[in-house]
Structures are given as C-alpha cells and as structure tokens.
C-alpha cells in the first residue's frame, strides 16, 4: 500500500510537470503574441519588445516554465526598474490588464468556484444517489419511470439552457431572490443565508445535469450489485431487505461513484465555465474565459490552465488512494 501511494504520488508529480511544461509550449506555439496584446492600440516594435521582457517571454520556453515554478515557491518580481513590483509566493504571474498578481485574482475567484462546485456537488450527490436508489428499489414502478424522465431531461438539456431557463422562468418570474444577489460573494461562515442566495440557483443548474447521470449510474449499479452472488448469500443468512440494501448493496454499488464523483468535482474546480458565465459568477472559469475573450491575458490563462490540470491530476491521485481504502481488493500486496 505504501509503495502504491508513493508510486502514485511520483507519477502524479511527473504528470503535473509534463502538463505544465506542455501548457507553456502550447501557448508559446499559438499565434498569439501576448507582448503585443498588452500594448493595446498603438504598438511599436520597441514597445512590443519591452512588453516581452516585462512578461518574461523573452527567454526560451523551458526557462519561462522554470521561472514560473520558481515563482510558485519563491515569489517573483515583475516589470522593470522603478515600476517593478513583487508578487509573493506562490506567484502565478502578474496581469497587466488587471494590474494585479494572478494569485490575488485566484484567491478571490476560487472561493466562488469552490462554493459553486460544493453546492452543486452536494445537490447532485443527494438527488442523484437517492433517486437512483429509489428507482432501483422500485424497479419498473412509477418512481422508476419518473426517474427515467428526469434522467432523460437532465441529460438532454445543455447546462446553458437550464441556466437561462432557471433565471428566466424561476428566479425572475417568482422574484425569489434579488437578482443582484446571485453570484455576489458572501462568506458562508458569517453570512450563510447570503451565501445560499448567491449560490443556490447556479449550483442547482449545474447539479441537474450531473444528478441525471448519477441517478442513472446509481440505479444501474444498485441493480447490478443486487444480482451479485454475495447478495444472495446475505439473503440466505436471513438478513432483511432493508439491511441488505443499506449495508451490502450500497457499499459495493456506491464505491465506483467515489472515482466518478472525485473526478467530476475536480473538473468543476477548474471552473464551471458555462454556469459561471450565465449567472455572472466571478469564479475561476469566468476569470479564465474573460482572460481569453477580453485581452487574451496570457498570465491568467496559463495560471488557470495549470491550476485546473493540477486539480484533475491531484484528485485522480486522491481518488485512486481513496478507492484503495474503500475496496479492499485494490488495497494489495
């Protein structure tokens, strides 16, 4: 087990290094000259050159990457001479269009994304899993059919439509929440109601599609597990159906959900782009998308890409290790 974990961690780190280097190469390769973009309307070659130095794009890609990595651990100076300034570690870069260290931006937007992701995660897990279980339990009956409809609708509605429809036909129609409050950051610890108001509907939107998938997955897993031999064994012992479901079936049926949920969740941490856009949430997704669409703000783009990758890669690691704990068969040798 220890070996397994160590090997996984090393692999994860290697993967992360490779991915981050690739990100640097990719953004170097594409025909976008960030040095030119930040000099706005009137670009002279000298100005572009100056910008290149300011952005640190004047050195080979690998060195750019290395400086980035150093910056992560040691902090980094941006700009030159009198106008230079320092971003403390972990420095993800500096954006000249928003005049801020990228780390500050991330620190500000991440809680939003995290709230959205957590809210959605909670909703879809609760709804998806319980509906899936209920449907499996009442296989072929009304509830099962109703859940089928839910699954179909959920998987057929693109998030952006769900979001728009929820805003138009729920939020605005019934005046549920001061529209200005949606997406306004509120600290969940000091202002839980404000937090709920800000994130309930966006989370709901996001949760619907996932909940549908999870309902389907849970239902089929529960049914599949229920037909396993060891469930028959449990029945032969004289266990009641309730206990069998609760203890024996769910344990095995829901284990694969850990992997799925972990990866889905980590995917969202990188930003739920569509939902954030529709509800005007200021999360990582919006940050990165705006960076693309507004000025192609390379430092933000690179930083968010790497962060999103890191979430995925690390979550993969965590999920793998967690799964090994949940399923003793994986916990080997």
């Amino acid at each position: 087990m220890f070996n397994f974990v160590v090997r996984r961690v090393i692999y994860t780190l290697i993967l992360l290094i490779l991915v981050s280097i690739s990100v640097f190469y990719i953004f170097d390769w594409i025909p976008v000259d960030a040095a030119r973009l930040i000099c706005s309307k009137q670009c002279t070659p000298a100005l572009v050159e100056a910008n290149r130095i300011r952005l640190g794009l004047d050195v080979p890609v690998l060195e750019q990457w290395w400086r980035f990595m150093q910056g992560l651990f040691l902090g980094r100076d941006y700009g030159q001479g009198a106008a230079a300034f320092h971003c403390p570690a972990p420095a993800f870069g500096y954006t000249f269009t928003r005049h801020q260290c990228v780390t500050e931006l991330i620190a500000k937007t991440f809680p939003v994304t995290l709230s959205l992701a957590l809210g959605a995660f909670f909703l879809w897990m609760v709804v998806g899993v319980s509906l899936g279980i209920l449907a499996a339990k009442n296989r072929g009956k009304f509830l099962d059919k109703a859940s089928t409809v839910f699954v179909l609708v959920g998987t057929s509605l693109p998030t952006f439509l769900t979001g728009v429809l929820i805003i138009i036909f729920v939020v605005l129609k019934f005046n549920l929440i001061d529209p200005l409050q949606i997406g306004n950051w509120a600290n969940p610890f000091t202002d839980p109601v404000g937090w709920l108001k800000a994130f309930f509907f966006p989370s709901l939107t996001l949760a619907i599609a996932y909940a549908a998938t999870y309902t389907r997955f849970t239902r089929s897993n529960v049914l599949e597990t229920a037909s396993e031999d060891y469930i028959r064994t449990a029945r032969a012992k004289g266990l009641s159906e309730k206990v069998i479901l609760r203890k024996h079936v769910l344990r095995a049926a829901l284990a694969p959900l850990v992997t799925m949920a972990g990866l889905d969740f980590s995917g969202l941490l990188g930003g739920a782009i569509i939902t954030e856009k529709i509800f005007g949430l200021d999360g990582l997704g919006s940050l990165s998308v705006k960076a693309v669409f507004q000025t192609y703000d390379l430092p933000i783009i690179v930083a968010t890409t790497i962060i999103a990758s890191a979430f995925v890669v690390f979550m993969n690691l965590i999920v793998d290790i967690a799964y090994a704990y949940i399923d003793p068969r994986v916990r080997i040798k």
Partner: protein
Amino acid sequence: MAENILEVNNLKMHFEGKRGFSFGSETPVVKAVDGVTFNVKVGESVGLVGESGCGKTTVGRTVMKLYEPTSGEIIFQGQDISKLKPRAMKKYRSSMQMIFQDPFSSLNPRHTVGSIIESSFVIHGITPEGGVKEAVRGLLAKVGLNPEHINRFPHEFSGGQRQRIGIARALALNPKFIVADEPVSALDVSIQAQIVNLLDDLQKEFGIAFLFIAHDLSVVQHISDRVIVMYLGKIMEMAPTFDLFLKPRHPYTKALLSAVPVPDPKIGRAREKILLQGDLPSPANPPKGCVFNTRCWKAQDLCRTTVPEVLEIAPSHSLACHFPE
C-alpha cells in the same frame, strides 16, 4: 520407437509484472511454467494433469507459440520453434492445432460456423480439392454435425456441438499434433463422453499426436498413452498411463489419485483417502526447495531446501521427488 513430434526442453514461461493504463498497480512476476522437459511422440496421446493454476494451459499455449517463452527449447518436427517470429512460425501452424476448453468463448460469436472453419484455409491460402465449402461440409460431417448447418452461428448450438465445431476447425489442415486444453471440462457429463469418444476416434483414425490437458484424471486416463503430472509450474511425475494410475510414485500423484471421487459407492466407501493440507501456493511466490513440500505429508528438511531433480526411475517413468513411494 516412434520419433518425437514435439520435444520440450527446460521450458520456462514467466509472466512479467503487468502494467496497464494506470500507473502504480503492478503485479509481480508469475513463474507459471518453470523448467519443464517432456516429449510427445508421433501419434501419441500425452495427458497433462494438475491442479488449477499449476501451469497446464500455459504449457499448452507456449508450446503452440501463443506466448513467447521466457527460455527453453520447443522442438517441433525437428525444428526449434521457440524463437521463431510469427511469420516464420506460420509454416508450422498447419501441423499443430489447438482445441480449447470453453466452447463458448472459443468460437467468434459474430462468425458463421462455415467461416470459422474455413478461416484455416483462408489464412494459409489453401484451396482444398472440391473447394473450401465442400471441405467444410466434410469436416462438419467428420465431427458428427449436420453439414447443412454451415451458415449458422455458434449461439445456435449446444456446448457439445460447439466443441465439435472447434474440433473441426482444428482438423481442417490435417494437423499432426493437437493441444487439447481441457476440451471436455466445460461440458455436461452426458456430453463429455461424446466428445471424448470423438477425440479418441480421430486420434486413432488420423494418427494425430495429442497433448491432452485436463484436471479430470479419469478422462486423462481414458484417452492418454502417457501422463504428465504438474504442480506449481514444474513436472512432478511422468509415466505411461497404466503405470501411473496403478502405481503412482510421487506423493502428489498419489494424493491426487486418491482425491478423485469415484462414481461407485462401494469402492468409495472401501477406499482410503489421502487428504492434503491447505491449497496450492501462489506461483508468484513458490515455496523453496521442492514446491510440494508445504502440503506433502512426507516432507523432510531436505525437501524444504533442495529442489529434487527429475529422474528416470523406470523406462519412460520420470519423477521429481526425494522420497518417492
């Protein structure tokens, strides 16, 4: 004395630790076959028995060159084929064929019976006299199936019939040597006999040499001239069938024979049984010394330290035991 069609010398097949899509979960090396030496004479039927996981299938497949052996020689019709590349191997393929255990998975469910059997011809670019279709019909008849069923799919047949299809496929190119890997163990008793008889007949009729793998000793006894007993990747005992069943010399063979349930209550009641302790150790981590020592009632210190050599104790009767019966 008839010459050998197959000679296997110190064959080893070790499966490397497995790596796949996910980094981190690697499996250890499995010494599935660890130095076996035996031969099969022309037209002879050799049985290979042993407990599950002892490496019978691996021997069969390695001999067929479905696996690249780790080391050792496989001399087929006088030629060492152990290192041949697939293309060079093709020449020998028509003379050696295989029959599989599971009649369900050995036939491609998406092909008709006809195309399954004719594939042998297609692959080797052979057009038999009277055409491929005719030849296929002939083969079907030969194994006791209705030639009209040439266009049916495998799932329309019962297990025994499917096994016949598999046999027809193996016979297509008139092989000289067939590896039959538990050809009847998946079949019901009433069907088993049909197939055993069929194989028996074919062997006699065409003089095909067989390596007959089975864990059911009574079947092996019925069909083989000679029997090899394997345990944990190694040969324990090798002897003519009659000798082996009459007077097993290796403790393991003895235990194995005594464990076979006899379908005769009176004999069963009278018989004394040797009950082995425990189970087969893992081939990934075999015991030191004689591999059988952990379950052997006669094991002594020597057995735990020293690997017994395979010695010929009587004409064509070999044994690997420090303390034979």
